[in-house]
């Protein structure tokens, strides 16, 4: 067992990436994720890795594309406006079926917005990472330990399915410190990458990594094949955690920092006799539809607690097939709902009783 150390969420991501075998990092500074780049700048030269501060976010994501094409584990990180700049590259990565890890430590938007925590890139991450038909696996850590664990998991899933995994965190998760253990003996799976561009040695046909398909029937085929893979991911990779759901009559749905705040509110509500629990999505895509649908037959109401204007609400409604009402408890623009605000919403959902 490795000793637990205190690390910022951003640092935990960086160290876990190195643990996962990532030796190539490309980025451009932006609050509140710059510690990732700073950590990589310190560590990479010592382990014969590459740290490169690109001239822009767009340059960084295209460098990621280049390394991904060689089959090496590679990552970039940014925060909301910076991720928007990367969206063209994200689409190209998808079109070329390349694995990569992209971290978004979200801040308030739209536009240049602010620098305080937010979850308002939910749509961007889960539905609109870029142009064209494609998905990204979206992982939403709620603990610094999960920042590390899901980074390792993200690299694994990216390689397994040849696609981009995104860590969707927020300013709080990036900046806070908690005990974290990055296990020395953590199992890192490696994957054969016969498609990688590594030099043929004149011994095989050369590989081509490309996202351009001018013949529509060919392009259609790649899209359909990709969506068959996505279907498999939806069936097998959804992750979530249940909290006090056994006898719950109200179900809070929250991820990341919103789940941490909600947990306090739920504990307090339980003390007051309100039967409330939480389903915390750990993957936002694939969205954990099954446990939500199962809960819909047991609870009276859902409350989505978010740091956005309610971007997750429709995913909950779809998952539960609108069987029960979904209410929203939110703060935006860098504000975080307090446990008291969430508790008030829970009480209201409980019909004002208690």
């Amino acid at each position, binding site marked *: 067992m490795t000793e637990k150390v205190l690390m910022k969420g951003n640092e935990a991501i960086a160290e876990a990436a190195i643990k996962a075998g990532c030796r190539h990092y490309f980025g451009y500074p932006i609050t509140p994720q710059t510690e990732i780049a700073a950590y990589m700048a310190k560590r990479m030269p010592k382990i014969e890795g590459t740290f490169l501060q690109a001239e822009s976010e767009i340059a960084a994501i295209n460098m990621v594309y280049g390394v991904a094409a060689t089959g090496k584990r590679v990552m970039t990180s940014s925060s909301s406006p910076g991720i928007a700049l990367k969206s063209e590259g994200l689409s190209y990565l998808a079109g070329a079926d390349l694995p990569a890890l992209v971290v978004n430590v979200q801040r308030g938007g739209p536009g240049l917005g602010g*620098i305080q925590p937010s979850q308002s890139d939910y749509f961007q991450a889960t539905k609109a990472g870029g142009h064209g038909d494609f998905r990204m696996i979206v992982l939403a850590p709620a603990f610094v330990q999960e920042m590390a664990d899901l980074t390792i998991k993200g690299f694994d899933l990216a390689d397994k399915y040849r696609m981009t995994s995104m860590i969707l965190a927020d300013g709080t998760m990036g900046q*806070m*410190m908690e005990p974290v253990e990055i296990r020395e003996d953590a199992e890192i799976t490696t994957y054969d990458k016969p498609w990688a561009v590594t030099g043929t040695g004149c011994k095989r046909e050369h590989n081509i990594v490309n996202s351009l398909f001018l013949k529509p029937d060919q392009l259609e085929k790649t899209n359909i094949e990709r969506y068959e893979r996505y279907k498999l991911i939806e069936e097998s990779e959804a992750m979530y955690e249940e909290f006090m759901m056994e006898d719950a009559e109200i179900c809070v749905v929250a991820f990341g*920092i919103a789940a941490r705040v909600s947990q306090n509110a739920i504990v307090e509500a339980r003390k007051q006799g309100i039967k409330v629990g939480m389903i915390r999505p750990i993957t936002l895509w694939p969205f954990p539809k099954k446990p939500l649908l199962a809960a819909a037959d047991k609870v009276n109401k859902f409350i989505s607690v978010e740091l956005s204007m309610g971007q997750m609400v429709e995913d909950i409604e779809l998952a539960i097939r609108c069987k029960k009402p979904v209410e929203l408890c939110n703060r935006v623009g860098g504000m975080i709902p307090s*446990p008291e605000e969430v508790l008030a919403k829970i009480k209201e959902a409980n019909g004002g009783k208690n």
Partner: protein
Amino acid sequence: MSTFNILIAGFGGQGVLFAGKCLAYKGLTENKQVSWLPSYGPEMRGGTANCSVILSDTPVGSPIVSNPDVLIAMNLPSLDKYENEAVSGAKIFIDSTLITRKVEREDVEAFYVPATKMAADIGAPTLANMIIIGKMIKETGVVDFDTIEVGLKKVIPARKADMLELNLKALKAGYDL
């Protein structure tokens, strides 16, 4: 002990974040559940800085301390801002060298520590943070003081090892006050 929600606030450069880290690390070595969350933003030396530290026997939910049961105010803006946020019965520690006013609330316990002056007196003018932390540990018992060195060693980088003794001296001065 159940849960301590601690808020440490002051000017950037007073070692507010460092003091919080020191506490969090000490808690970790005592197998407590801990979290440390800094204010971040366009802060700089001379601006305001604060950090939330939670030490608990049970898993930490929200890492944000908006209603502290222990408040350390290292400057007047911090006391003005957070005095009314503290819970009833909170312990409030004040650097009385820099803050001349008294706590207005009557449902909290106030401790006035001339930390900045004491730090200068012991030859460690930058360690008012450690003086006030020493006093706070004495009054709350949040962590074990006898082994405080363990926490300090974790946060003082090797290249600054010579600062360890001085930090300990400041902690003790506050503790023995």
